[in-house]
């Protein structure tokens, strides 16, 4: 699997170069086509249930004063990553940046790259133009999320194969790598569902309670906003027909983390379904919980302007306001101007949160 993906990417990179050489042989300036990545070309795919880019295309040209440098840089990144693939070595975007941070020539007072930020947009260009992920180019990103639970993973890395049992990771869990596709294989997964909790603190609490063992689930935390690796892993687990439940703060940030997992984000809409989990469910914390559990009433926080503004914005998104339960939830936030953190569930006693989750799943008390 790893070999085939890498060689597929390799072929795409070579085709990119060959197409340009054909153009040059014909006496034309080299170009390549990419998808327009603007808000106006971002749409919600009803059939799949995620955000994705529309059909508007954009042609990048070398023969343009405005584009020549970026064009040259894009091709340089393509050429450099082809080398990474051939050598089977990985590096971060920052590492790539340093690989390419050299002068264009003795008589040219200009570097190929001067800042790392220059490379981000053109890596996205390559992802879209070649229909690949940056991970396919052996570019790594920082890891953040953790998992524990009944799952075994085969990791082919650095010329070795390691079998990793995620139920034997002790207090720290397994750190989700930036690429869960290339050289990574789920060997065995006996879990009944996936639980995603926003904060590492709550994850550690539940891990201590052996929650995942009792519930036979995979306990995941993205530690805030999900990395590409975490989102990709959740997608793969959902593909294994595992229900994905999310427990977030009841505030702007919590909602955003949830909806990014579910539908993807506006900024990375071009990633589409591979990075979205439309099946994901929002367990809590909800405004209704505040009514249902008396002790929570004393633990609410005053909603900030940003929370109310975010709630109002969300009511405007068609993929959110078609869920009546979400509309009611958000309207209540705007009305009461209250919010509540997931940590509040430990307010009564530390083990309450496990019961809460268990109960909610059993009673199917979630928002879509």
């Amino acid at each position, binding site marked *: 699997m790893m070999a085939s993906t890498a060689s597929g990417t390799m072929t795409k990179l070579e085709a990119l170069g060959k197409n340009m050489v054909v153009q040059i042989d014909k006496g034309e300036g080299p170009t390549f086509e990419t998808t327009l990545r603007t808000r106006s070309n971002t749409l919600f795919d009803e059939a799949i249930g995620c955000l994705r880019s529309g059909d508007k295309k954009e042609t990048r040209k070398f023969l343009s004063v405005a584009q020549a440098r970026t064009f040259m840089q894009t091709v340089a990144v393509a050429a450099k990553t082809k*080398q990474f693939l051939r050598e089977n070595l990985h590096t971060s975007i920052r590492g790539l940046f340093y690989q390419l941070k050299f002068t264009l020539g003795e008589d040219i007072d200009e570097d190929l790259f001067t800042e790392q930020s220059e490379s981000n947009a053109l890596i996205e260009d390559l992802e879209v133009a070649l229909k690949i992920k940056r991970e396919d180019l052996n570019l790594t990103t920082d890891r953040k999320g953790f998992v524990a639970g009944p799952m075994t993973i085969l990791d082919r890395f650095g010329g070795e194969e390691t079998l990793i049992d995620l139920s034997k990771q002790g207090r720290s869990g397994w750190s989700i790598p930036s690429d869960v596709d290339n050289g990574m294989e789920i060997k065995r997964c006996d879990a009944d569902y996936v639980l995603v909790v926003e904060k590492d603190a709550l994850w550690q609490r539940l891990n201590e309670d052996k929650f995942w063992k009792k519930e036979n689930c995979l306990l995941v935390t993205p530690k805030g906003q999900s990395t590409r690796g975490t989102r990709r892993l959740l997608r793969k687990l959902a593909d294994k027909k595992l229900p994905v439940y999310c427990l977030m703060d009841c505030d702007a940030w919590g909602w955003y983390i949830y909806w990014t997992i579910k539908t993807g984000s506006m900024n990375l809409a071009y990633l589409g379904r591979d990075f979205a989990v439309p099946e994901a469910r929002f367990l809590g914390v909800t405004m209704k919980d505040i009514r249902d559990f008396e002790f929570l009433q004393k633990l609410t926080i005053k909603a900030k302007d940003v929370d109310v503004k975010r709630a109002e914005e969300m009511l405007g998104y068609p993929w959110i306001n078609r869920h009546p339960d979400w509309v009611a939830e958000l309207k209540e936030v705007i009305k009461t101007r209250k919010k509540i953190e997931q940590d509040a569930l430990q307010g009564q006693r530390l083990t309450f949160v496990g019961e809460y989750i268990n109960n909610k799943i059993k009673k199917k008390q979630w928002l879509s």
Partner: protein
Amino acid sequence: MADSDMFKNFKEHSVAEFFKKNRQMLGFSGKVRSMTMIVHEFVTNSLDACEEAAILPEIFVQVEELSKDGDHYRITIKDNGPGIPKSHLAKALGQMLAGTKFHRYIQQRGQQGIGGSACVMFSYLTTGQPTRAVSCCNGKRISANIGIDFKSNKPIIEDVGEEPTLETGLTVTAEFKDVRYERSNHGVYEYLRRTALANPHCAITLIEPNNEKVVFPRSIEQNPPKAFEIKPHPLGIGTHDLLEFAKHNKENRRISAFLQNTFSRVSAGKVDELQALLPELDFKKDPSDLTWNEAELIVKAFSKVKWIAPAMDSLVPIGKTQVETSFRNIFNPEVLVVTERSPKVYRGGIPFMVEVGIAYGGGLVSAEKRGEVMRFANRVPLLFDNGGCAITETIKSIDWKRYDVKDFEEEPLAVLVNLASVYVPYTSAGKQAISIEEDIMDEIRFAVMEASRGVQKYLSGKRKAHEIATKKKVVGRYATQLASDLATLSGKKKSEIEPKIAKIIEEKYASEPGGGEGEEGGADPSKNTDKNEDIPESEGGDE
């Protein structure tokens, strides 16, 4: 030639006393200016005399400093003209004249005729010394010291000598105080430089007080055509003028004949056209019986008839090729556009025409000349009083940005404007500024605009070429890196790809403007459309 009309019409006025008290009216105010004015008066007289005698002018000017404190100089001006006959020498230099040529409709430089004698007077006033004149004329070499009796406006002539000679020409030497030599914008050097510019047929040599010799060589071996007297043109005539002419009319008994004989371009056919426009007016009656109303009707009818433009031969412009030649000789500019408008009239039918030359870059850059306006009236440089001058005012009123000239004062740009006319409306007897006349200003404006458009065309072409070159450079610097990466990706050889990319860039940025794709189209279409201010062409031709 000697006793020609030139010296016939002297009219004596006792104006010396008046000018003694009001010498600034002649332009003798300020030390530098006074010196320039002295040189100017003699040089213009020399040029006029040479041209009238059909001699290619060769003028020698020497300025010597007599005292170390400055302010005391000897000025010598020598020409190769016809000289002045003994009978007229004293009058020509020693008597203030209201004009030798003022009453004739003919273009000459020394229009008001007060020049030479004013200098003699100035010398006499400041040093008490007479002016030494040596005139070689008709085979005789006459030398004399000439002064002025201010009270009677009579010349004082002494030490007259006479001997035979084969040469011709006039040499005048005089001492002056209250003057100063400077190589400034208002000085003798600049004056002679501009004189040479506007008079490419003359050769000028200047010896400066420090003995430095400056030669402005002749660039055209031909004198300008001679001007002829012409009658006023009907389009320039007002009701009052018409009545004035009618009152002084003696030869013509009928209005029809009066019109034909008094004004230019009025033929029997044109009188018929006027008659058709004014059926109630009797064109057979005596012009002296013309009433104000009738005169007004005729003047109105004048404007409805299509006239041939005033005759060119009353005007002596520098000439397009002449301006070009001398501009190139003196400045060697990068670009030069010369416009010559056809003749027009102002006020009482006085013909005039405007020539404009605009030079940009080249020698102007190295000469550190920026936004230089060179004013001329009948090829005489106007160095002073530029504030109230029609030429300065007109140039100031032009929106130079429209012609891609960002800041007129900062650009290596020289604008020459010459007003040729039989009668130049100077603002004062100093003859250094042209008064604000709408008709003249319009013509100057149109001529400058026309020439500016030519310069702009050049500048925008140059800028476009520069932009294309810049684009080529911007894109071109990435060619090597691109070729190397494409070689890595495609497996082809870099050495094969790179020259092809270079060729593509070369072709792309050679074919622009117009061939540009997408966002970098070459020409800015908004640039050329809003520039078409109306420049009326003069009707008729010059025949």
